């Protein structure tokens, strides 16, 4: 028994497969505030992993990396000036190292201060928390893993609460079609919508694409209210019933000339921005199929006639 005790407790085998985890809430903060004002926001940083962590924090700027929602962190402190960020926690400051035990949660009160002279525009930031890399066990070649997790902040500075918002519809067309569009009656039209934000503040496009046809056919595709950041473009998706996806009609059969009208407002349903396209739906595949069938039948008929003759 004594030998077992010695080997179990004095020479323990290191546990290698330990997980490292981070959680953050809220993942996205949208705030509008006046110059000269200050706000606070409580963040919850959690460690759902199996190891105790040492954390550090930072605030970095971000910008869209593409038109579909990806982001790129930009380590340029000038972009967020003159807004100042700090933690209100008594025992924790922004940039300081702190422990986060396995299974633990740390509440952090972030304070944003906007000077009176701050330009009225948007500031896009990410509150980033990162782990200190830990040494693995043994003297073998290895890669240590490190995790960073961020929560994004969309900050609008405005005296009036109504910052200047403006948009351009960069693209509104049928997928795989740019000019005169002919689609098969049995295909469901899919639309490409790209909107550029030319104003000073981000907005969500609220509106829909209305399809109208000859025979009183009508269908509405609601735009997904995704944030479009100032100075950037975004491809807009739609929400249809309980799913999010491309702006694609549901009607199984279309015939004749159709009008598709894109109509949306910036953070409202004013319908201020409108654009229309037209397309024609013809049962192309059906007609082609019938045509080929007729030709085949005629060939068979001709052949039969020759054989008889």
């Amino acid at each position, binding site marked *: 028994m004594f030998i077992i005790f010695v080997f179990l407790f004095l020479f323990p085998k290191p546990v*290698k497969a330990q997980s490292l985890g981070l959680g953050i809430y809220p993942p996205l903060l949208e705030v509008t505030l006046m110059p000269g004002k200050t706000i606070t926001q409580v963040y919850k940083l959690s460690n759902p992993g199996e190891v105790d962590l040492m954390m550090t924090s930072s605030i970095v700027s971000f910008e869209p990396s593409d038109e579909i929602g990806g982001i790129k962190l930009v380590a340029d402190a000038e972009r967020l000036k003159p807004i100042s960020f700090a933690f209100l926690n008594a025992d924790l400051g922004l940039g300081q190292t702190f422990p986060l035990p396995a299974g633990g949660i740390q509440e952090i009160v972030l304070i944003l201060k906007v000077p009176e002279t701050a330009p009225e525009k948007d500031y896009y930031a990410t509150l980033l928390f990162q782990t200190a890399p830990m040494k693995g066990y043994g003297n073998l070649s*290895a890669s240590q*893993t490190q995790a960073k997790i*961020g*929560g994004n902040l969309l900050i609008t500075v405005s005296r009036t609460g109504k910052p200047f918002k403006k948009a351009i519809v960069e693209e509104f067309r049928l997928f795989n079609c740019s000019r005169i569009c002919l689609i098969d009656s049995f295909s469901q039209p899919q639309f490409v919508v790209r909107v550029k934000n030319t104003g000073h503040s981000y907005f969500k496009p609220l509106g829909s694409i209305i399809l109208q046809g000859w025979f009183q056919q009508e269908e509405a595709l609601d735009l997904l209210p995704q944030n479009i950041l100032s100075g950037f473009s975004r491809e807009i998706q739609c929400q249809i019933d309980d799913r999010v996806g491309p702006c694609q009609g549901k009607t199984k059969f279309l015939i004749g000339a159709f009008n598709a009208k894109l109509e949306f407002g910036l953070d409202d349903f004013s319908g201020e921005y409108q654009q229309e396209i037209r397309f024609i739906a013809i049962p192309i595949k059906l007609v082609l199929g019938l045509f080929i069938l007729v030709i085949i039948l005629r060939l068979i008929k001709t052949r039969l006639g020759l054989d008889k003759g």
Partner: protein
Amino acid sequence: MKVKYLLILIFFGLILASPALAVPTMSSDNYQIDWPNLNMGAGVPSSDNYNLGVTTGQIAPGLYYFENGYKVRAGFQYIHSIIPFTFTIDKISVDFGSLTVGVGSTDTIGLEVDCGSAGGYQVTVQENDRLTSTAGSYIEDTTCDPTDTCTHIYEGTWEQSTTYGFGYTMSGTDVPSEFASGTMFKNFADVPGDEPQKVMGLTPVEGHEAGRDKQATMTLKVNISGTQAAGVYENIITFIATPTY
């Protein structure tokens, strides 16, 4: 007569008095309260082991299910059940063991994400440096097979035993489509010059669906040549998980 005048006065007072309004929003110079509620009692009763959040006076709080698959969580307390954004790596260290010339050593890192927002997320990766020994020797980042080279941005095949270096491939949920075949590798973006590269994550355009337990696997591969200096080689791989906007 006096009673009559008094009654008339009361009557006109009632007609002309401002109606009582349930003000939908309350605001000040610094704040606007969007969810006002006239409470009969509130607070955070607590003990040594528990905190209890209580809000009373709400109309029709509760969890409601609908046939089309929607759930409505009505009431202030349901704010606690919103899925936070979490990211887990299943290892703090990836050990390649003793490296053998011409024999690729591989190991995996499991990634798991919970993302409750409809906007999507991304996990990007970079390395602090090439695999480096204490003596200062490097194992270079792989450029994949000569017939189909790779970089930290573009994928390539890595099947030949004479292709050396360090790289990775991805498999699982929400990984970039270039890894779908399972045979394509990339090397790691290097700090500080290279942009971290996405290894996991979708946006609505790409088909993101909110949910928990999204799992992917990164397979790391190291292959050394006969001229590689002996030593213990190490580096740090950093994963950056962020929601979209």
